[in-house]
């Protein structure tokens, strides 16, 4: 084949350009630490990366709502714990009040303590987390209970999404927990009854209140275990989110991230090829019959 001067020059420039191009691409990847810098580098993987990015940001959202859900549930749990302590104390008072070892004055003192408990119970029922009255159902902008124990809320429970596709109820409706709305015992009425019985020295009614306190305690304890199991669900969901996150990150790394060792090798090779081309080019160009004529 004839090799002409223009042909040689254009081939030489083409080779140099090609080597530069290769070097630049590797350099670009190393600089960003990613194999894919533009959708056109690999359209399928770049869409995959985008979806994984979205999954990861979604999981962060879920974690934040999960934190809010556990915030509500832990506050509820704490309040119910105090209610339970309060009922145990009321039960002690009732047992003492029912025995003959105490006189009317003692019972009046006990009644005063029980009345104070009643107010504490109202305060606990009006628990407020970040401006939301958690026991008030959806009517969460006003206190759940009036001072006389009347329930202001409704029977709804706030549901939150804590993991993709998983919703957990984050509140309890106060009407069911403290009142008789769910077919249970009205704890306010029990305490009120106990106080009245103590004030009137009516031992039979004190005895009745004692039974009422027992069912109240059971009611509170079952509410506490419900809250506990919901908290467990939230924790499980967070764990599940973590697993999903790790999975998504691993996948994204596989698809997108650069194998630095491989890239460095590629860089060294591209560099070497470019150097060799550059070094040989002037020698090629120097060849001419004109040198000898």
């Amino acid at each position, binding site marked *: *084949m*004839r*090799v*002409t*001067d*223009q*042909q040689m020059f*254009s*081939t030489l420039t*083409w080779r140099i350009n090609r080597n530069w191009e290769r070097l630049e691409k590797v350099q670009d990847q190393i600089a960003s630490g990613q194999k*894919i*810098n*533009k*959708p*056109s*580098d*690999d*359209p*399928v993987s*770049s*869409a995959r*990366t*985008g*979806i994984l*990015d*979205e999954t990861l*940001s*979604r999981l962060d*959202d879920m974690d*934040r*709502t999960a934190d*809010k*859900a556990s915030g509500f549930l832990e506050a509820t749990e704490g309040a119910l714990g105090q209610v339970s302590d309060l009922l145990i104390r009321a039960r002690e008072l009732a047992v003492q009040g029912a025995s003959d070892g105490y006189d009317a004055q003692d019972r009046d003192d006990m009644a005063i303590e029980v009345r104070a408990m009643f107010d504490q119970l109202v305060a606990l029922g009006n628990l407020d987390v*970040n*401006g*939301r009255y958690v026991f*008030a*159902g*959806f*009517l*969460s*902008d006003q206190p759940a209970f009036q001072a006389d124990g009347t329930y202001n809320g*409704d029977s*709804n429970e*706030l*549901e*939150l*999404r804590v993991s*993709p*596709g998983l*919703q957990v109820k984050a509140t309890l409706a106060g009407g069911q927990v403290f009142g008789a709305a769910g077919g249970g015992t009205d704890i306010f009425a029990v305490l009120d009854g106990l106080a009245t019985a103590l004030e009137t020295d009516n031992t039979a009614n004190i005895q009745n209140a004692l039974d009422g306190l027992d069912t109240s305690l059971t009611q509170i304890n079952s509410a506490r275990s419900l809250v506990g199991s919901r908290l467990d669900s939230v924790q499980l969901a967070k764990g599940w989110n973590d697993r999903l996150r790790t999975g998504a990150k691993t996948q994204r790394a596989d698809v*997108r991230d650069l194998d630095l060792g491989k890239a460095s090798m590629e860089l060294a090779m591209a560099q070497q090829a470019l150097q060799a081309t550059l070094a040989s080019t002037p020698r090629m160009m120097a060849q*001419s*019959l*004109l040198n000898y*004529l």
Partner: protein
Amino acid sequence: MMTHRLSGDVASHNISNATTPGYSRQRADLQARQPWLSMVGPMGTGVKAVGIDRIQDGLLFQRLMDAGSDSGFGSSKVAVLQAAQTVVGIGDDDPVAASMNSFFQAMEDLSANPSGMAERQQVLDKAAQLGTTMAQVRDELDGIRKDLDAQLTGVVDEIQGRLDEIAVLNKEVRLTEASGGQANDLRDRRELLAREVADRIGAKIFSDDDGNLNLMLNAGGTLVEGDTASHLELQPNPSNGGLLDPVVVSGAGVRTVLDSSISGQLGGLLSSRDKELAKSILDLDTLAFEVAGQVNAIHQTGFGLDGVSGRNLFSNIAVVDGAASNLTVDAAVLGQPDAVAAAQNAGALPGDNRIALAMAALAQSDTMSGGTRTFSEYLLASESDLGAGLQNAQRDAQLHADRLSQLSSMRESVSGVSIDEEMVELTKAQRAFEAAAKVIKTGDELLETIMGLK
């Protein structure tokens, strides 16, 4: 002597044109003169130059034109789609995906605190931001399409100039060759122009016996016929938003409207404008239309803090076309965080979060592409399509550029000037010239000897 002088001249012409684009090397065509019949048989009468040949391979030429137009198609497409890809972005730099994410995130936050003014305000802000971002991206993509009109005008002008020159050269070649000989340099220039036309629009070459170079579009339609060059113009296409389409008007007045199926740079520009870019914009419009429609459908059933139902969150969008530019927060809720409907039941205000929860769930529901993709999957698939279009164009451009350089190399191998070879040729002519001079000198000496006989 004169003949060998001519060989030398041709070689030096070649050397001086060693770097002229499109130049084909030339050779003096030498032949032995007609012998005369001597008593002992035919007797040679020396040498004569019968012409100057242009050395080239005719078959290679059409292939070079085709490779040129394919490569022009690919590279002009790459340039346009690269600009589009920069607008669309990837991963964290993807503005539409990011703002859509934050909108649904704000919705999720609202579901955790449906009575919160800050959360409600966030939903409105993020909804407005989603609209602005989509409109911006759409505007920029549309801007790239509109800017192509200016590029089309430039390319069409370049083609027109070359067609006109080819027509003039056709005439000159005919006139020159009518008086005998070959118009080598004019032909070279004409073929170079034809290749440049092919790079831009894709053309087939037809030479006729008169020495004319005629050009046709690949799909049919005359570009140059003899002395007549067709006229190229651009006409607005009302069904494509008034964007310009090139039209070829032949000498006989036949109009051929060109579309994205043509080759060359012009084809690349039209194809990226009317295929990839048009699709990206349509996808964005569809997404905006669906987001607005589906969010509104749920929002309308819900109640704001003021207990009012039936309001849209986004303004109603009637048609898909242009939807991405029209995604705005509805006037009924604009600036009124109270009006955002998070509650399903008017009696359960303000703690009811069920509508907010349902709207947030849209982000993960397969509602697009016939119920197979979520909003963001749809967006990413569309962006991936654009990326694939660019990747194909890059591959094509690379492939055809390699093919073109290989063919050019083949052409150079046949028609290109090798300075070494021309130096040899020059030396050869010089030697022959010297030898011829020697012959004359010897003849002269012979004659002198005869003249000296007394």
